[in-house]
C-alpha cells in the first residue's frame, strides 16, 4: 500500500515537473525566437502575441491592437508614431501605368519610397528595382539594377524598367501563404499583417516579380528617418522575421494622395489612379495606348501596366 502511494507520488511529481518544464519552454519561446537569440522586441506586450488576424478582429480589438503598437513604437523609437486603420474607399480599384519611354532611370522613385515606408536603412531595403536593359531586347535575366550612380542616365543604347509589387488580381503570394497573413484588400492592394506573418518566405518564392522583401534582421530604423504617418497594413515599423512589400503607399493613397514614387518621379512617367473611374487618367492610358504587363502568361493579372509613347 505504502509502496503504491510512493509510486503515485513519484508519478505526480514527474508530471508536475514536465508541466513546469513545458511552461518554462513556452515562456522562453515568447521571450526568444527559434534561433536562440533574445527577442527582437522586448517591449512587446503580451497582448500582441495573442491578438487575432487583422481581418478577424472586432473594431474594439483593432483599437486595442493599434494602441498597443503605438505604445511599443513610442518606447522603441522614442517618437510618436500614429498607426491608422483607414478602410479602403468604395468603388476604388487602384491601378498603375508606367511610361517606359519617359523613365530615364534616375531612381528618384526608389529613394522617395524608402523615405516614406520605414524600411530597413542599413543596408537599405528598397521596394522598387529599376532595371537597365539593352534597347531591342527584353531579357529580364540579363537586366541589371545595380547600374552605377556615377554614370549619367539614360545611358546610350539602354532603357529602364522599374519593377515593384504589381498588386496582382490573382496574386500567387496570397495563394501560397500558409497562415493567410497576406491578402488582397477590396481596393486591390495586397497587404501583409506583420503580426500574423510567420516568416516562412513562401510568398517571396511565389512572387514572379521579385516584389517581396524579408527582414532577416531587426530593421535598423533611426529615429530621424521614421515617417510617423503610418498605416497598420503598410508602413508601420516592422520587426525581424516578417515579410514586407510595396502597398502603393496605402497610407497615402487611401487618403487621396498620390503614392510617393509617383509624386517623386521627375519625368512624369508614372500614372496612378482608380481603374473603376472611366474618366481617370489610368483608364485613358489603358484605352488609348499600347500597354503590356510583365509575365502575362502566368495569369497573375497585375494591376501594373507598362506603355510607351
Amino acid at each position, binding site marked *: 500500500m505504502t509502496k503504491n502511494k510512493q509510486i503515485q507520488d513519484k508519478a505526480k511529481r514527474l508530471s508536475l515537473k514536465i508541466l513546469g518544464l513545458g511552461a518554462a519552454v513556452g515562456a522562453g519561446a515568447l521571450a526568444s525566437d527559434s534561433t536562440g537569440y533574445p527577442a527582437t522586441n522586448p517591449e512587446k506586450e503580451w497582448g500582441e502575441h495573442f491578438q487575432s488576424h487583422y481581418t478577424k478582429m472586432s473594431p474594439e480589438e483593432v483599437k486595442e491592437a493599434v494602441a498597443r503598437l503605438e505604445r511599443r513604437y513610442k518606447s522603441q523609437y522614442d517618437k510618436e508614431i500614429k498607426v491608422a486603420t483607414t478602410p479602403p474607399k468604395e468603388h476604388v480599384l487602384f491601378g498603375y501605368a508606367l511610361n517606359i519611354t519617359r523613365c*530615364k532611370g534616375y531612381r528618384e522613385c526608389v529613394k522617395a519610397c524608402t523615405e516614406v515606408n520605414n524600411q530597413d536603412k542599413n543596408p537599405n531595403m528598397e521596394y522598387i528595382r529599376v532595371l537597365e536593359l539593352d534597347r*531591342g531586347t527584353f531579357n529580364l535575366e540579363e537586366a*541589371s539594377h*545595380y547600374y552605377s*550612380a556615377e554614370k549619367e542616365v539614360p545611358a546610350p543604347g539602354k532603357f529602364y524598367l522599374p519593377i515593384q509589387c504589381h498588386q496582382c488580381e490573382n496574386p500567387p503570394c496570397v495563394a501560397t501563404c500558409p497562415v493567410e497573413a497576406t491578402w488582397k484588400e477590396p481596393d486591390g492592394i495586397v497587404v501583409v499583417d506583420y503580426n500574423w506573418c510567420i516568416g516562412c518566405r513562401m510568398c517571396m518564392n511565389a512572387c514572379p516579380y521579385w516584389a517581396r522583401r524579408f527582414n532577416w534582421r531587426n530593421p535598423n530604423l533611426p529615429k530621424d528617418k521614421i515617417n510617423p504617418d503610418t498605416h497598420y497594413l503598410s508602413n508601420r515599423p516592422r520587426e525581424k522575421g516578417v515579410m514586407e512589400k510595396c502597398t502603393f503607399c496605402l497610407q497615402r493613397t487611401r487618403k487621396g*494622395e*498620390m503614392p510617393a514614387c509617383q509624386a517623386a518621379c521627375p519625368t*512624369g512617367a508614372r500614372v496612378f489612379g482608380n481603374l473603376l473611374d472611366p474618366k481617370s487618367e489610368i483608364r485613358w492610358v489603358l484605352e488609348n495606348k499600347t500597354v503590356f504587363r510583365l509575365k502575362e502568361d502566368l495569369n497573375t493579372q497585375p494591376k501594373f501596366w507598362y506603355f510607351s509613347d
Partner: protein
Amino acid sequence: MHKWILLGLLLLLPPNLGALDLSHIPSTRSNPEDFSPAPQNIDPLSLIKQAPPFVVPDRTEKLLTYPCTGCHTQGIIKANPKIRPLQMMHQEINLVHGKGRFWCTTCHSTYERDNLTSLKGQPIGFNQAYLLCGQCHQHRLREFIYGAHGKRIGSWEENRTLLNCTECHNPHVPQIKPRKPRSAPAVRAGLRPMKPPIQEHPPFWPSNLDDYQRH
C-alpha cells in the same frame, strides 16, 4: 458508292451558293469620307474642351523677369523682330528650340509683352504655355491633357492639377539632358553583387539592335 451519295447531296444545295451576294454587307469603301486624312491642325482649345477639366499652377510667380512690361514698354524698348545675337540683355538664353527656325517673337507677343502669342497672333498667357506648345506638338498635348504625358500633382481623386510643359522643359532648350541617378541599391547582407551576364552567343537580332542604336 460514296461518291454518288456526295454528288447527290451537292445537287441538293441551292444553286446560287457559288455566287454569294455580298451587297447586304456594309462596306466602308463606298463612303469616300472614311478615307479622308486625319485633321492635321487640331485647335488646342477644342482639344482641351473634350478632356476632363484640369488646372495648372501659376507660372508667372516663378518667372524672374516677369512682368516683361517692366522693361519692354512700347517706345522705350521696342520689339525687334530681326534675328541677331543678343547683346544687352537675355544673353543667358540659348535658343536651340526649332534649330534656327524661331526667334523670340515667334512665341513672345510683340505687342502684348506680358503674353505669349500663337502662330495666328492670338495672345496666350504664360500660365497656359501648353496651348502654345500644343500648336506643333499636338499629339503630346493630347496625351498631356488626358494624363499620359506630363505630371499630375496633388490628389489622384479630386480636381486634376497638371504641371505646365515649361515646369519640366526649358522652352528655349526643351530636350532634357542626361544626369546622374540616385545611389545604386545596396547588396543585401550576406550577398555579393551580381556579375554582369556572360554573353555566350551573339544577340538574336543584330540588325534590329543596330536600328535601335542608330535612332
